[in-house]
């Protein structure tokens, strides 16, 4: 999927028990979503370290999704509650630093929500595509690419 020839890179961390299964269900139900969304399987959304997210952005990702079980449904009972706090604070910090908050998203997707996964991935892709290439996070300390050129 492209927007004006620009194809954002999106990394989606999916917990094994709910969201990854939800993405599988999107597949077996043939709900399509953009191919630039690539999924990384983690046991639980609470395995997602802010470092992973920042590393993805640093490496050139334009958007990062973290998908977990709905609150109360965590396979490990409380993992997603930890994820929620961690991401709330991390996203708020990045926003504070002037980095578009819309580039990161925490979504609850159950194993039965194949359609929700597909539509969430599509919506997120569109949002990120509108924001354009991710420059800010990668360049927070250095001069922006345009300035360098």
């Amino acid at each position, binding site marked *: 999927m492209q927007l004006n020839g620009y194809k954002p890179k999106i990394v989606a961390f999916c917990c094994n028990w709910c969201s990854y299964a939800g993405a599988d269900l999107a597949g077996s139900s043939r709900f399509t979503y953009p191919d630039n969304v690539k999924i990384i399987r983690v046991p639980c959304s609470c395995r997602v370290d*802010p*470092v992973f997210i*920042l*590393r993805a952005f*640093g*490496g050139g990702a334009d958007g990062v999704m973290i998908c977990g079980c709905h*609150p*109360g449904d965590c396979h490990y009972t*409380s993992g997603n*509650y*930890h994820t*929620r*706090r*961690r*991401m*709330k*604070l*991390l*996203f*708020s*910090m*990045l*926003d*504070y*630093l*002037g*980095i*578009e908050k819309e580039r990161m*998203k*925490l979504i609850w997707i159950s194993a039965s929500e194949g359609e929700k996964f597909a539509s969430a991935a599509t919506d997120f892709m569109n949002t990120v595509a509108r924001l354009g290439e991710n420059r*800010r*996070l*990668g*360049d*927070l*300390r*250095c*001069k*922006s690419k345009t300035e360098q050129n």
Partner: protein
Amino acid sequence: MQKQNGTELKNKAKQLLQNKTVDRVAGFCAGEFAYDPSPCVFYSAEEIEENMIYDCFCSPNFSKFLVKETKKPGRIAVFMKPCDTYSLNQLITEHKIDKDKIYIAGIGCDGMVDVFKLRNKTGSAILKASCDNGALTVKTPDGDMTFAFDEVLAERCLVCKSKKHVYYDELLCEPSFETDTGRFDKVEQIEKMSADARYEFFRSELSKCIRCNACRDACPACTCETCVFGESSSGAESRENANEFEEKLFHIIRAYHVAGRCTDCGECSRVCPQRIPLHLLNRKFILDINRFYGVYQAGETVGQIPPLTDKNESDPEV
């Protein structure tokens, strides 16, 4: 201006050694310049009498220093200003300091001088400095100068969060209270700026970073055995073997790793040679935690669970 003078502390220190309460005392001795007293450990009354000083330049937070000191045999006495005791509690919570090996004498504090501010104001070398009666008198090659204390006080002292000692074995001053000085004002002001302006502000600030790691080394919450940002075995202790990623994201991760554990002692900003206001990152986390999960002051008591390792079903959604 510090409430206890050097003589008072000296006498106390000598007494603690003489009556065998402790085996050694941590304090300050004169540095190379008038404004840079350095932390040191005294083993005898004679050393104390000869070298120990205390004045409005004795800023460093002694709590982190105790992590290594308490691994040594014997008990050590430390004079602590109120803000230091919060960091101390946090370190005790994290099993970094053994309470049995410390003796804390709480000392009153009216704030410490910001040396950078002072040097900017004097514009020339500081040969001698003395603080008295709410004013600081500085001797320079160009003559004496006097400043009102508020003019040269460190930012963290201007917005001091608490005059209360949350840990002590003995108080040398009157017990005091937490204060409300609007320390989040600047954070809230930044929050109100546009995203572009925020980005520009932090980019220009963080661009100054030379990755000297002074902030990390001074931070009482940074006490990992090894740091994610390189290890001493790499032979680059103070100049990390940084790859590009670490370069860019160092400050976000640094602040994130201490979020919920940072007591807002302000050491990071104090030691930054580039004058980056690093406390603005830490305070943002503190403010957010207060907003989302209820008011929380790290280090207030021993045994608190830091908000980032706690949870509640009814936490707000992202």
